[in-house]
C-alpha cells in the first residue's frame, strides 16, 4: 500500500438536493445540522430562504435547487453548513439537503455534464456523482431564480 499516494486522494461530501446527488470537496464543508430553527425576515436576495443561529453565528440558508433542479428544493430536515470562499463572500452558509450525507474519497474524472458548475465526476459504487463548484452553483442558481425575489415569497 502506498500511504503517500492514498493521502493525496481527494475526499468529498456527497449529498442529495431533491432527486439529485452531487458532491462538494470535503474542505468546503463544515458540518451537517438537523432541524435548526429557521428565521425569516424581508429581503430581496435570491436563493436565501432564511437564517439559522448556529454556534453564535448567523448562518444564511441558501437553496441551490433553482440551479440543480430547476426549481426550489423540497422541504429539508438537514442542512449542510459550507464555507463560501468567494473573496467578497467569505462566510458560512447552509444548504438544505435531503437525507444523510456521505464522506467519500476518490479520483475525479473530467465532467461529462453540460452544466458549468460541474467541475468533474466521480464513480461511487457504479453511481456517477457530479462534483460541483459551490460559488458557481450559487451563481447559476441565482441566475435561474428571479433577479429580485419578492420578500413575500422569501418568507414562505
Amino acid at each position, binding site marked *: 500500500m502506498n500511504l503517500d499516494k492514498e493521502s493525496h486522494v481527494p475526499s468529498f461530501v456527497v449529498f442529495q438536493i431533491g432527486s439529485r446527488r452531487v458532491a462538494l470537496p470535503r474542505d468546503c464543508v463544515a458540518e451537517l445540522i438537523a432541524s435548526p430553527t429557521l428565521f425569516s425576515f424581508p*429581503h*430581496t*436576495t435570491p436563493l*436565501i430562504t432564511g437564517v439559522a*443561529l448556529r454556534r453564535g453565528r*448567523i448562518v*444564511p440558508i441558501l437553496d441551490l435547487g433553482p440551479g440543480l433542479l430547476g426549481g426550489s428544493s423540497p422541504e429539508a430536515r438537514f442542512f449542510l453548513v459550507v464555507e463560501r470562499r468567494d473573496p467578497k463572500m467569505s*462566510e458560512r452558509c447552509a444548504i438544505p439537503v435531503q437525507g444523510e450525507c456521505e464522506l467519500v474519497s476518490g479520483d475525479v474524472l473530467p465532467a461529462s455534464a453540460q452544466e458549468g458548475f460541474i467541475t468533474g465526476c466521480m464513480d461511487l459504487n457504479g453511481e456517477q456523482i457530479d462534483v460541483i463548484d459551490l460559488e458557481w452553483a450559487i451563481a447559476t442558481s441565482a441566475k435561474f431564480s428571479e433577479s429580485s425575489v419578492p420578500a413575500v415569497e422569501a418568507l414562505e
Partner: protein
Amino acid sequence: MTQAASSIVAPRETRPREQIAVFSIAGCSFVISAASVQEIRSTDSLGGAVVDLEQIVFSKVRHIVEREARSYYVVSGCEHFHLPSSRPSTVLILRSAPVAVLVDHIEEMAEMRLLLALPKSFTGDERAWYRGLTVLDRKVLPVINPKGFLTPAELRQLEEQNPGMLQTAGAGSDRGRG
C-alpha cells in the same frame, strides 16, 4: 449606538446596551433603536395633520404628516418591505430623517445587547434596510436602519416632484398653532 462588527456573537459582558422598540408589519417583527424614534402615535390620533402629496413618486409614500412644527413623509412599512397589505394602527415618527413609518403595532420595548452584521450573502435592498440582526428571546430579528426608509436620492426626488411641500406643511402647522 451598538456597532455591528461581525456575525459572530461577542461575550455577553462586553456588549453595549441599546433601548429598542420591537414592532410588527404583516406578521414580521422588526427592531428599531428607541433613540431614532421621536414619537410613537396611533394613526387615529393624526387626524387632520395628514396632507396628500401632489405627485406620487414612490407608491410607498403618499402623504405628509405634520407634527410639532415639522413635517414628515409617511412611508408605508408594508410597501417598503414588499410585504402583503396590512392594517397599520401605529406610526413611528423618526428623529433623524423626515420620515414617519406606518406599522401594524408595537410588540414591546426592550434592551438590545447584541448587534450582528448582516451576513455578506445578503446582497439586496436589505443591506440598506437593516443595520444588522439581533437575537431577542431566542429569535433572530432584523434591526432597522432609520435612514433606509428613504435614501437621500429618494428624498431628493420627492422634494423635486413636490417642491416646498414638506416645508409648507410644517409652516402651515406652525401658523395653525400661532
